[in-house]
């Protein structure tokens, strides 16, 4: 077992969380454009619930789940010993500091180090949980910077359906509802593509995976 794979506690708690999220949401991955196995990846997804990254990692095959970590906000997950234990020991997370003024480590360096160590990342390009009526917020620059600096890593859009109804912000108990995660075709940063154009294209690719109002895709 290499140092990059999950620890025993992380493997066990990951499997338990996957079992729990299956029991509550019956989650099923829909592979619409990418295969379950592939190169090292950044899964970028819409974000409205703490359950989001558990749902995405539940959908991954066992070997891929073991090398995949979620990028999460250090300000939230380092606040208090319980959150620190959950994010540091039980789950596979890469914690980044979102506060520009007080931060001690550059988020880009932290994420690049994880990628260089061979990990796949679950990444929420909106930067925070979306509490608006909009389906998807504007993307922050992080996704573009990662794509520009590590062009070999696949960027896979994943649309998470319904998780915000199961476990909205501030809720403690999940309401059982069916969830799906739709994995789209990987994106590549074009030669000389502008930051803004790329982010807009990535956002459109993710939105295109969302079901339409009439339930069809």
């Amino acid at each position: 077992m290499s140092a990059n794979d999950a620890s025993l506690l992380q493997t066990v708690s990951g499997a338990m969380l996957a079992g729990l999220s299956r029991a509550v949401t019956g989650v099923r991955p829909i592979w619409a454009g990418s295969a379950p196995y592939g190169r090292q990846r950044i899964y970028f997804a819409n974000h409205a619930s703490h359950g989001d990254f558990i749902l995405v990692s539940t959908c991954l095959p066992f070997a891929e789940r073991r090398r995949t970590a979620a990028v999460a906000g250090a300000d939230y997950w380092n606040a208090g010993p319980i959150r620190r234990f959950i994010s540091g020991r039980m789950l596979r997370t890469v914690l980044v500091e979102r506060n520009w003024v007080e931060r001690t480590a550059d988020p880009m360096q932290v994420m690049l180090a994880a990628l260089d160590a061979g990990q796949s990342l679950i990444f929420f390009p909106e930067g925070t949980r979306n509490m608006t009526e909009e389906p998807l917020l504007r993307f922050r620059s992080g996704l573009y910077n990662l794509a520009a600096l590590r062009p070999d890593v696949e960027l896979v859009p994943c649309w998470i359906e319904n998780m915000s109804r199961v476990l909205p912000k501030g809720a403690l108990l999940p309401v059982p509802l069916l969830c799906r995660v739709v994995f789209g075709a990987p994106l590549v940063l074009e030669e000389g593509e502008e930051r803004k154009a790329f982010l807009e294209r990535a956002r459109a690719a993710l939105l295109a995976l969302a079901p339409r109002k009439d339930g069809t895709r």
Partner: protein
Amino acid sequence: MSDDTRLFLGLASVLVIASLVAGVLSWRSEKPLPATLENLNARIKAWWIMVAGISLAFLFGTGGVILLFAFVSFAALREYVTLTNTRHADRWTLLGMFLIIVPAQYYLIWIDWYGLYSIFIPVYCFLAMPALTAMRGDTSRFLERVSEQQWGIMLSVYCISHVPALVTLPIPGNEGRGLLLIAFLIATVQGSDVLQYIFGKLFGRHKVAPSISPSKTWEGLIGGIASASLLGAGLYWLTPFSPLEAGALAALACIMGFFGGLVASAIKRDRGVKDWGHMIEGHGGMLDRADSLVFAAPVFFHIVRYAWT
């Protein structure tokens, strides 16, 4: 040979024959297989798993069957609520539906308290649920939300719970054979679904309700219900009924089952989905398989209770 053994050997042989027929059809068909045949194979495979699950529950007796149907209710309710309009203010009501109403209803059946399990949901829950929702103060589409919640509990929990409740009926001369009565209901209603599908595929011309379901035809309906009633009459040895009574009750259950499927299709059409979920390969969700049982169970239960106890 005991009646249980006969029943399950019979079921197994039906599935073996179905698998053989589908295997020969797949072998002789052009490749890749047409969608109908793919779906038929998936359905038969799922039937093996469902029959195995039901048989396992029956091995554990009444408790096993109650647990099985509590799980069916949970899965059906989850599929139903996913398609409804829920707002943040509904959270406590929704949690109560899953965490309190489902276990309480099946517990009341387990302790055989007919006086309460027959009114617990339509009286107490139907009043408590809107009260709780109103206390949260969000009146937007209030009537719509409350109605959807109540109809969901009615379909997914109250109606379905009447299948295991059959075991509690004190029919004279039928002591200890309550589970076989459940097997009779499931076999005829599900058999009717399969037979309607087969008759519809073979002879279907005239649609019953083209705006709701393109697959329901008069030929399938009449052929399916007639043959399922004969099947019910042939299974009379599972029940306290004579062959004629068994056939008539089977016909009634199958007609109710047809209406259940029709109502479920109307709800799905309203919400723009083809299936309730994706739990059972080839069939769709739990409610896609249980919709006919939902309508058949309470009517079958009360007629048997009125006329035989």
